């Protein structure tokens, strides 16, 4: 007999008095409209519940019912190209039944329960299966095959199998008998608690890059498959644009895009753009490999807190099938603020700037779910996490940025000054870093060229020297520098404008393959070497700047299509000819 009722209400936090049977983090239904909530605190007197929806109109005395289990995500075919809210409710379905505004208490199944999938069974009677093993597969989208797995933790012998055919996500396909003789029915979909990491066989070393086609990332600060990165930046510096570019072009098999407490129009933009764009590898629409979690800033704050976990659980599920998954979380600061807001309602003792003391441990738990793994079923897969951080007042010393910095290995700091000058991506090359360089060096040497990392090192040295020279220039002006230093300034400008700056709206420039990135570096360095030799002969730098060479090199990114790399030869010739002409003067 279940007679628990609401006792107190304060925003999204509701308490029940005198209940003893609730578990920590159990999912519950609250009130007459059955709002979804989660138990977050239990004491002798009161059980505290965080409700994922607005509580306006709720009265004390309304019923609270437990579900006996934690908050779960439903995992099965139909996730891809869908858009969910923070607790995996399908927004398209909600829109169909209730129009443009989201009502409270809509109780929609996450996946379409009526759609029939053409399923191929992969097991036969008598097979022994353990958790993670694939027992059925069906084409989920044009590019992704969905592999349904035995839920981790379960193993046994197959006692019956349905034939290949069309089935819905809930129809039992396989019956598994465990060691104690109990039968378990397996359907295409199963549930998994969102706050619990899905188990793997082993964590593998990181050695392959996530190729993004963005030059400053791939060449200067690369990220690995299974790695973690943070993009901090004040408003207007292009966090979301960078995330969009990565979601569009990175060579992951599957993208999970979490819009966590961000703008509604941005999610609409992602929906629209991704539907129109095609994946460079497969030529199919980008939506076929993307799932969106949209919990915009005006949607309930508790669901915002959950959205990060929902997203990462979906990512782990596809990793278990053997795919490489990239998770974009925009923005983790909004998630941290949701933590702070709920913590405040619980009257917990605040630590830094009102954030709860458990902020660092929550951030690390999230980022540690990334990795390159050997799955339970023996396949390999990875989850890469790229989290945007929105520091208050663009001040990187605030708690969320600082704590994130401790747990990620790639840091792409966005710079207001660059954004003001409309230099995009506005990633600052002096304060950003990537710890993956050493891990990835063998891959670059083997797959691209032995020359890649040495070139990268030289480019980065020139930028560093420019930063030093800029200190002097700020005080006394550029005119007084000797010619060889002026050349460094010119080459650095060429690198900044010609290489690092990248136009997301240009047909070719929006995605640049690694070989072209290498050749761009090489041609710039070739120019630098030749010009240095010219300067060493005493020829003034104005001769070089007047030759128009730099301007034509700056425009390489637009002039050479990604498919015609042989055109680079013309530039080598132009550099040699023009600079040789100067020699004879």
């Amino acid at each position, binding site marked *: 007999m279940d007679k628990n009722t609401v006792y107190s209400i*304060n*925003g999204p936090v509701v308490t029940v008095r005198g209940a003893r049977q609730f578990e920590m983090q159990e999912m519950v239904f609250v009130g007459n409209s059955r709002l979804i909530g989660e138990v977050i605190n239990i004491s002798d007197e009161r059980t505290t519940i965080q409700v994922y929806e607005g509580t306006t109109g709720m009265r004390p005395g309304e019923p609270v019912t437990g579900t006996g289990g934690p908050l779960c995500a439903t995992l099965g075919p139909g996730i891809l190209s869908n858009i969910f809210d923070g607790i995996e409710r399908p927004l398209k379905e909600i829109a169909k039944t209730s129009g*443009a505004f989201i009502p409270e208490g809509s109780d929609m199944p996450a996946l379409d329960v009526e759609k029939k999938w053409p399923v191929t069974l992969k097991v036969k009677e008598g097979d022994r299966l353990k958790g993670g093993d694939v027992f059925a597969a069906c084409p989920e989208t044009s590019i992704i095959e969905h592999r349904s797995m035995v839920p981790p933790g379960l193993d046994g012998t197959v006692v019956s199998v349905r034939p290949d055919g069309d089935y819905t996500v809930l129809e039992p396909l396989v019956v598994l008998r465990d060691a104690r003789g109990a039968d378990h029915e397996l359907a295409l979909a199963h549930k998994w608690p969102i706050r619990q990491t899905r188990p793997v066989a082993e964590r593998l070393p990181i050695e392959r890059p996530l190729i993004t086609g963005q030059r400053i990332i791939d060449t200067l600060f690369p990220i690995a498959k299974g790695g973690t990165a943070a993009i901090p930046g004040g408003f207007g510096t292009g966090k979301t644009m960078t995330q969009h570019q990565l979601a569009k072009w990175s060579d992951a098999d599957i993208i999970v895009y979490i819009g966590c407490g961000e703008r509604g129009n941005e999610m609409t933009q992602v929906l*629209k753009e991704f539907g129109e764009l095609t994946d460079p590898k497969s030529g199919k629409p980008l939506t076929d490999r993307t799932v969106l979690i949209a919990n915009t800033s005006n949607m309930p704050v508790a669901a915002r807190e959950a959205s990060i976990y929902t997203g990462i659980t979906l990512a782990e599920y596809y990793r278990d099938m053997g795919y490489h998954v990239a998770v974009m979380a925009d923005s983790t600061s909004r998630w941290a603020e949701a933590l702070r807001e709920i913590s405040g309602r619980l009257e917990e003792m605040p630590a830094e700037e*009102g954030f709860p003391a458990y902020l660092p441990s929550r951030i690390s738990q999230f980022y540690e779910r990334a990795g390159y793994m050997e799955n339970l079923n023996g396949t390999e897969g990875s989850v890469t996490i790229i989290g945007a951080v929105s520091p208050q007042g663009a001040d990187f010393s605030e708690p969320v940025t600082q704590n994130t910095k401790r747990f990620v290995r790639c840091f792409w700091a966005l710079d207001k000054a660059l954004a003001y000058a409309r230099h995009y991506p506005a990633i600052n090359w002096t304060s950003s870093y990537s710890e993956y360089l050493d891990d990835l060096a063998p891959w670059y040497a083997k797959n691209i060229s032995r020359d890649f990392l040495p070139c990268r090192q030289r480019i980065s040295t020139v930028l560093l020297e420019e930063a030093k020279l800029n200190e002097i220039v700020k005080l*006394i002006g550029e005119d007084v520098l000797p010619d060889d230093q002026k050349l460094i300034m010119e080459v650095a400008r060429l690198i900044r404008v010609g290489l690092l700056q990248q136009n997301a709206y240009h047909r070719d420039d929006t995605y640049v393959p690694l070989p072209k990135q290498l050749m761009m570096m090489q041609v710039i360095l070739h120019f630098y070497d030749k010009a240095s030799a010219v300067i060493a002969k005493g020829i003034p730098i104005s001769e070089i700047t007047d030759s128009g060479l730099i301007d034509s090199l700056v425009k390489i990114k637009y002039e050479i299509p990604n498919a015609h790399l042989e055109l680079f030869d013309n530039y080598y010739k132009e550099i040699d000819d023009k600079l040789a002409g100067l020699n004879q003067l």
Partner: protein
Amino acid sequence: MLQFVGLSEINGPLVALDRVPKVAFEEMVSLKLDSGETRFGRVVEIDGDRAVIQVFEGTRGLSLENTRTTLLGHPMEMPLSLEVLGRTFNGSGRPIDGLGEIFCERAADINGKPMNPVERVYPRNYINTGISTIDGLATLIRGQKLPIFSGSGMSHNKLAVQMVRQARLSGTDEQNFVIVFAAMGAKNDVADYFRRSFEESGVMERVVMFLNLSNDPIIERILTPRCALTVAEYLAFEHGMHVLVVMTDVTAYCEALREFSSSKGEIPGRKGFPGYLYSDLASLYERAGIIEGSPGSVTQVPILTMPNDDITHPVPDLTGYITEGQIVLDRQLDQTGVYPPVSVLPSLSRLMKDGIGEGFTRADHSDCSNQLFASYARVQDARALASVIGEEELSEVDQKYMYFGRMFEEHFVCQGARENREIGETLDLGWLLLSLLPREELDRVDRETLDKFYRPEQAVQKFGAPKE
């Protein structure tokens, strides 16, 4: 209906009532004083049979014995009908223009509901404001939320009035344009200034005004934008109108929220503002937009004054993270007499890139604005250098930048309060100013575009040249 005699606690704008059975969260209540006065309030917290109520009109004159409280059984609602056009309301949505109550078609919860991102239409059509810095560099798009970041004493109100007066939609929608004005803690003079200028430009019958002046109760201030936006959503999505919502001053709103939060005894976040300030502001700003299946739109221009001109203060900071760009005003420009004193570099419109160019404004729009931003950013470097070594010592190119910067501010940024520039005029002016610079400095633009628009002789003719 049940009536409760007396109160059990009074604290700032909050009162508590014990032994209330079955009260609903955020339910409206009316409090009748013995003097005959009626006030309204809302339930903000329930703990067992104890309810905490915020009183909109303030608690002055309330005692533990002299009130009778009635639960009204519904959340805070705003009466809606087309009659609201041309009317003036107070912060909690009651008419104060002496024309009587409005006959309402229906009433709606002022908190609204979050828009489903699936049902949003991505905003693309621009609104021509006739102001070069906005149209050219931070274009306002229908369905956008674009705040003005200002400071005390600067001409943000003048700018907002000019935007409202000159705002034009393209094509057949021109007639369908209404303005919702919400004053939150605004000074009497400011509210008056807006009203006068609406009357002068003859649009008063297309304006709905919500006035919560700086000496009105702060709880009403928290309701003001919600009432205004409920009306805006009604006009836009049920009657297909294009609604421009001007809200001033968001800083006063946030301070009211802080006052209310601290009287509830909540744990403060940054600068004493409540931890949920971001979510709260988002629940206002996110109500801008366009939805599938309705021709109307809600566009927001919130105005906020940055305390001490500090853009990192929580209010402008959080606002910037939610809104789709910002227009920042600059005190130095204001002091040199430049109107509108728009600080070009930090100003930005995020939706601009998809709402300009061929078919919307002009094909060269994005090239022109990108190059202006890049070149004007260089001007700042040159100025910094000049302040150290003196302008004469600058290189020739830097001198040209200095001159370009000055001309840009005098001719492009600066314009008359009644000057309405066409978008083509704005872009041509931009190209002509860029032509003051050496051609190789214009590295954001490709060759063909430069061939078409780079006119150094004409530039010198119009603006003169820096003296050698």
